[in-house]
C-alpha cells in the first residue's frame, strides 16, 4: 500500500499542477476541431509536419519565457535573442567553424548571454523587466552589426534535417519536454520555482536561489538561441529582425498557459498549450483569408480575456 503511495507522489504532484488548465484545454480542443473542419488535410503526415514546424519556434520561446517567469522575472529580449541566434548560426556555419561549430557557437551564445542577464538579475539584483529591456537594445544592435540585412547561409543538409519532410521537429519537441521534466526534478529546477514562489523562504531553506536563477536565465537563453538556429534553418539564412514578434508571442503563450507574472506558478505544458492555441488560431485566420494583421487583434483580445476571465468570475462569485 505505502509502496504504491510513494511511487505515486511524483505523478500526484504533476496531476495537481494541471488544475486551472481545463478551460485552456477545452478552448484548444475547440480550435483544433475548427481547424480540422476548415482544413481536413491537416491529418496528412506532411501537413502535420509542416504545422509543427510552424509552431516550433513559438513553442521554444514560450518555454524560454516560462522558465524565466517561474523565477519571478520576465524576459523582454526574447525576440532580439532569436534574431541574434539566427544571425550567428547563419554567419558561423559558412565560416571554417562549419555546421557543428555553428551549432555550438549558437548554443554558447545563448547560454552566455542568459548567464549574464541572470547574474545581473540574481546577484546585482536589478529588476528583470528593465535589464532585459536594455539587453533587447544591445542584442538587436549586435545582430544588426553582424548582419545589417538578411544574409549568411545555413547548409542545406541542416535545413533539410530540421525543416524537411522528416518529423524531426516533433522529435525535438518531445526532447524539449523530456529535458524539462529532468531539469525540474533536479534541485536547481525545483529551486527556480521555489525562488519565484517565496525567495526568502527558499533561501532560508538552503535552496541555492542565486544559482537556480542564473541557471534558469542561462537555460532560457539557450532555448532562445536554439529557436534562432531553427528559424535560420527554416529560411536558409540569418535575419537580424526576424524574431521581433516573438517577444510578445512568448509572453502571450505563457500567460495563456497559466504562468503567473509573480513567479512560482505555472507549467511548461500550459505554456506549450498556449503557444499551440495561438499557432492554430493564426492558421485558422489564414484559411479564413483574414488579413494577417487581424491576428494581432485576436491575439491581444485573447490575452486580455484569458487574464480577465478568472477575475470577473471571482468578482461575480462574491458572497454578496
Amino acid at each position, binding site marked *: 500500500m505505502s509502496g504504491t503511495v510513494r511511487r505515486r507522489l511524483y505523478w500526484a504532484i504533476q496531476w495537481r499542477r494541471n488544475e486551472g488548465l481545463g478551460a485552456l484545454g477545452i478552448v484548444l480542443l475547440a480550435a483544433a476541431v475548427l481547424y480540422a473542419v476548415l482544413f481536413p488535410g491537416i491529418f496528412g503526415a506532411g501537413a502535420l509536419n509542416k504545422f509543427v514546424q510552424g509552431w516550433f519556434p513559438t513553442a521554444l520561446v514560450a518555454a524560454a519565457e516560462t522558465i524565466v517567469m517561474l523565477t519571478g522575472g*520576465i524576459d523582454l529580449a526574447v525576440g532580439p535573442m532569436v534574431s541574434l541566434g539566427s544571425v550567428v548560426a547563419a554567419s558561423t556555419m559558412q565560416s571554417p567553424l562549419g555546421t557543428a561549430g555553428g551549432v555550438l557557437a549558437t548554443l554558447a551564445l545563448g547560454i552566455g548571454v542568459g548567464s549574464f542577464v541572470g547574474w*545581473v538579475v540574481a546577484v*546585482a*539584483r*536589478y*529588476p528583470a*523587466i*528593465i*535589464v532585459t*529591456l*536594455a*539587453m*533587447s*537594445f*544591445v*542584442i*538587436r*544592435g*549586435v*545582430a*544588426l*552589426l553582424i548582419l*545589417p540585412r538578411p544574409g549568411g547561409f545555413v547548409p542545406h543538409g541542416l535545413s533539410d534535417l530540421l525543416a524537411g519532410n522528416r518529423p524531426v521537429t516533433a522529435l525535438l519537441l518531445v526532447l524539449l519536454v523530456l529535458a524539462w521534466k529532468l531539469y525540474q526534478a533536479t534541485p536547481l529546477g525545483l529551486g527556480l520555482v521555489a525562488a519565484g514562489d517565496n*525567495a*526568502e523562504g527558499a*533561501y532560508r531553506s538552503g535552496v541555492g*536561489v542565486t544559482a537556480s536563477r542564473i541557471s534558469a536565465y542561462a537555460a532560457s537563453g539557450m532555448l532562445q538561441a536554439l529557436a534562432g538556429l531553427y528559424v535560420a534553418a527554416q529560411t536558409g539564412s540569418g535575419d537580424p529582425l526576424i524574431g521581433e514578434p516573438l517577444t*510578445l508571442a512568448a*509572453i502571450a503563450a505563457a*500567460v495563456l498557459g497559466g504562468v503567473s*507574472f509573480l513567479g512560482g506558478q505555472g507549467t511548461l505544458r500550459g505554456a506549450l498549450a498556449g503557444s499551440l492555441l495561438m499557432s492554430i488560431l493564426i492558421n485558422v485566420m489564414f484559411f479564413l483569408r483574414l*488579413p494577417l*494583421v*487581424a*491576428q*494581432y*487583434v*485576436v*491575439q*491581444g*483580445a485573447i*490575452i*486580455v480575456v484569458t*487574464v*480577465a476571465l478568472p*477575475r*470577473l468570475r471571482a468578482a461575480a462569485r462574491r458572497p454578496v
Partner: protein
Amino acid sequence: MRAFALPMALRGFGRSLVAYGVVALLWIVASALIEGFGVFAHLRYIVELAAIIGLVGVGQTLAVIGGGIDLSVSAVITVAAIVLPMLSFAGDATGLGAIALTLLVAAAIGAVNGLGIGYLGLPPLIMTLAMATILQGLLVLIAGGSAVSVDNPALNWLGNTHVLGISATILLWAIVAAATLFWLHGTRAGALIYAIGTNPLTSLLSGVRVARVTLGLYVASGLCSGVAGLLLLAMNGQGYVGIGDPYLLSSIAAVVLGGTSILGGAGSYVGTIAGAVLLVTMTALITVVNASEGWRQVILGCLILGLLPLSGRDQSR
C-alpha cells in the same frame, strides 16, 4: 545613514540630478569637439526632438511611479497621427475640433487601460501590451499600409511658430511638464500616486480610491501620448503605421535614466526630462559619428545598463 534619512521624494530627486549631469557633460564635450553641435539652433533642435519623448514620458513616468507601466504609448501615438486626418470635418476652420476629438480618442484608450488595470485588476504589463497589439492590428485594418498626410491649421501653427526664438513645441512641452510636476509634487492627489505605487493594499486600507487614481494615471498617459502623436504629425507632415514605434522603449528608457524606480512609488518627472534630452543627445552624437543603427542600439542599451544603479534595486531576495 544620511542618505537613508532623506525622504523618498528627495532621494528620487537626487538620482535624477545624475542625468542632468551627464547631459551637461555630453553637451560641453561635444560642443568642444564637434563643430556646430553647440550652436543654439542645434541644441534647440535636440530639445525639440526630446519634447516628443518627454511628452510620452509624462504618461510613462506617472504609470511607473504608480506601480505600473504603459506599453501602449507607441500605439496611441500612431493612433493620434493617423486618426486626426480622418476626424477632420468641414466647418472646423482652425482644426482645433479635430485635435480635440483626436485627444478624446487617445484619452479613451487610456481610460480602457485604466479600467482594466484599476477595476479588473489586470497586470499593467498585460493590459497595455494587449492594448498595443489590438491597436496595431486595428490601425492596419483602418489605414492600410499607406501614409496619410494632414493639413490642419492649428497643427501647422504649432509646427512653425516660435516665441522669442523658442519653438511652440518646446513651449507646449514646458507647459505640460510644469502641470505634471505640480500634480505630482504640489497636490495631494500626486502624493496618492506614490502611495499606490509603493503599496496598493496599504493605500486601499488607508482610504485611497486606488482604482480611481489608477484610472486617472492611464487617462493622463493616453492623453499625453496623443499630444505627442500630434506633435510628431506636425513635425513630419505625415502619419503612418509605425510612426510611434520608437517611442515605447525610449519613453521607458527616459524614465529609467531619470532615476525613477521601475518598481514604483519613487522618482519624479524632473528626471524624465533630463532622461529624454539625454537620449536625443546620444542619438545625435551617434549620428554625427556616423555610427550605424546597430551601434545606436548597442550604445543605447549599454547606457541604460550602465545607469541601472540610478533606478534602484530589487530589495526582496
